[in-house]
């Protein structure tokens, strides 16, 4: 069953002389990666449900350049950034929400120096805001009592000290939140950051995502919650490696809330 989503673009909005309250930055993973696209759709479902007047850039969006910057290619990063900033500024964008902590960090922290000044928030922060303002209501039964553990994305947590928003949102589902031993400031990376997503790991004795999955399995979760498309991939692979995919789901907070 294909649910019809309402996804206006900035170009359409502008043609109608309207300005959305927030721009949804989809990001490359959210646009092209099969698993991440489901997260994108889930988040739009939430936006539609809460009647948020939002828009996306659509085909005018380009890669933030974040991954190029972490890999050391400052040229490519700045080229991408300057192009994106030109588009964002042309639409007079003030507020941006994204499901990707890497885009979040990059636009929030590294675009201002190149002329792009926006208020940037992560989707877990926005969902929290929607719930608090009463625009989004959860029925609170879907995940009641389920054991959920949250894996902190490095670029949301340590990089930007956002630890509470995802947890507060998860608590709203009436699930039982169990912390891994390494969490918040000491959370272990999923292994995808710093451009590792796009290359094989250096020689070692273990894959990082397996080690992190072991951290998660210790909490005996029914669901591993994530807030980053890359973490989601890494944790999903880890759970498969441990042959636990029948018992444990890896879900983005957007997906959890869209069903709650």
């Amino acid at each position, binding site marked *: 069953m*294909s649910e019809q989503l309402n996804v206006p673009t900035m170009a359409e909005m502008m043609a109608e002389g309207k300005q959305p309250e927030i721009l949804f930055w989809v990001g490359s993973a959210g646009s092209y990666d099969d698993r991440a696209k489901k997260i994108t759709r889930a988040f739009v479902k939430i936006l539609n449900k809460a009647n948020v007047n939002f828009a996306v850039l*659509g085909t005018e969006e380009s890669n933030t350049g974040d991954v190029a*910057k972490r890999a050391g290619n400052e040229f490519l990063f700045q080229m*991408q950034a300057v192009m994106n900033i030109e588009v964002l500024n042309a639409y007079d964008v003030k507020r941006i929400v994204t499901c990707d902590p890497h885009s979040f960090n990059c636009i929030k922290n590294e675009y201002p120096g190149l002329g792009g000044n926006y208020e940037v928030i992560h989707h877990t922060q926005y969902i929290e805001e929607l719930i608090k303002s009463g625009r989004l209501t959860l029925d609170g039964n879907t995940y009641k009592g389920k054991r959920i553990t949250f894996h902190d994305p490095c670029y949301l947590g340590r990089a930007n000290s956002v630890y509470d928003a995802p947890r507060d949102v998860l608590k709203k589902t009436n699930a039982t939140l169990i912390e891994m031993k390494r969490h918040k400031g000491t959370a272990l990376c999923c292994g995808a*950051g710093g451009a590792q997503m796009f290359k094989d790991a250096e020689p*070692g004795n273990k894959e990082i995502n397996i080690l992190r999955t072991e951290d998660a399995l210790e909490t005996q979760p029914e669901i591993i919650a994530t807030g980053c498309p890359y973490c989601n991939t890494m944790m999903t692979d880890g759970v498969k490696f441990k042959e636990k995919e029948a018992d444990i789901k890896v879900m983005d907070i957007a997906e959890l809330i869209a069903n709650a």
Partner: protein
Amino acid sequence: MEYLPNIIFAIILISGIGYFASNVKKLIRNIKLGHKVDANDNKSERWKNVINIALGQSKLVKRPVSGFLHAIVYVGFIIINIEVLEIIIDGLFGTHRIGLSVLPESVYGFLIGSFEVLAVLVLVSVIVFWIRRNVIKIKRFLSSEMKGWPKSDGNIILYFEVVLMCLFLIMNATDTTFQNMEAGNVISQFIAPWFNGLSEGTLSVIERSAWWLHVVGILIFLNYLYFSKHLHILLAFPNVYFGKVVPKGKFNNLEAVTAEVKLMMDPDADPYAAPPETSEDEVPAKFGASDVMDLSQVQLLNAYTCTECGRCTSECPANLTGKKLSPRKIMMDTRDRLEEVGKNIDANNGEFKDDGKQLLGDYITNEELWACTTCNACVEACPVSIDPLSIIVEMRRYLVMEQSAAPMELNTMMTNIENNGAPWPYNQMDRLNWKDEN
């Protein structure tokens, strides 16, 4: 001849402090080999960090056992060193326990008594530290970069502290006037009986020897710092002040790149224009870092401040999964290379002579650099605000922008971004396809 001890004391004191000062000058010169960083922003936040992180040790206590022991040694060391003030005055003016003639007996006794208690606490902590390093074999002290000198260095520091504390207590225990005063000898009164039966003359010799060795020991320790990882007792404070005060995820944007990108994006720019006049000896900006001179002064200060505790490495996901990368080694390598460059400058009349070596390759390998996930765990773990990640990124920049030496898969990823605005080979026009898929 009456003033001989005073003169000897003054000579020892001046040469001890003088040699240390000359090494500090060298240290500052070496740090200045890096490029300048503007740290005039967020002054109040910086001072707050100095108070909380450096003075208050807020990050150290995140590991309660070592944090608590460290706090004892730290407080002990600072407070007991108040005693040094008295020693210096006594030594220079030939007085004995000048504090007694300035302070009421009860206050003086209270001070010395606290020093004695602290001395014992420090002794105990230092012994536990030694056991942790040499008997319990805690993993972070066993990494490959901790073999040889770094291991001995760690132990030598502990031996120094044991000796200094013992000398302090013996000095008090054999000081008969002080013992007879019966104020402040909380600990030394139990040590004094060990020397029972010795003549007053012998006691005095032991007391004087302990006193002199204590002073000389402190001065040797002070001068040992420059050659040791122990510099952190001084540098932690400026290092924390200059530490990162923006979100950890924020990497600096290279200004040299911005200038070129702006030019490329400027529709009015003349692509055939002659480059602006530059003087002959002006070296074009180098992208990223291949040697210590390409790093910033803060990064070099970081390297001198590192006390090799290894908390960074023990949190590093790459290291935890057996990869070669160790953030601590990045800092140790940076310092070793900086020292090598410094010695080169000393040997060549203040001018660095190319030695055919550099930080990249000769100290830090590409394999280490590419293993980093930029997760900031090392930065978060460091109790004194060292940022190994910034050095890793700076060296990746050199590899990618100066040498085009990125791993092949990353080159593919970057080509994709250049061509179609995504790290995968998908069409830009398909960016919104997710809307109608399920």
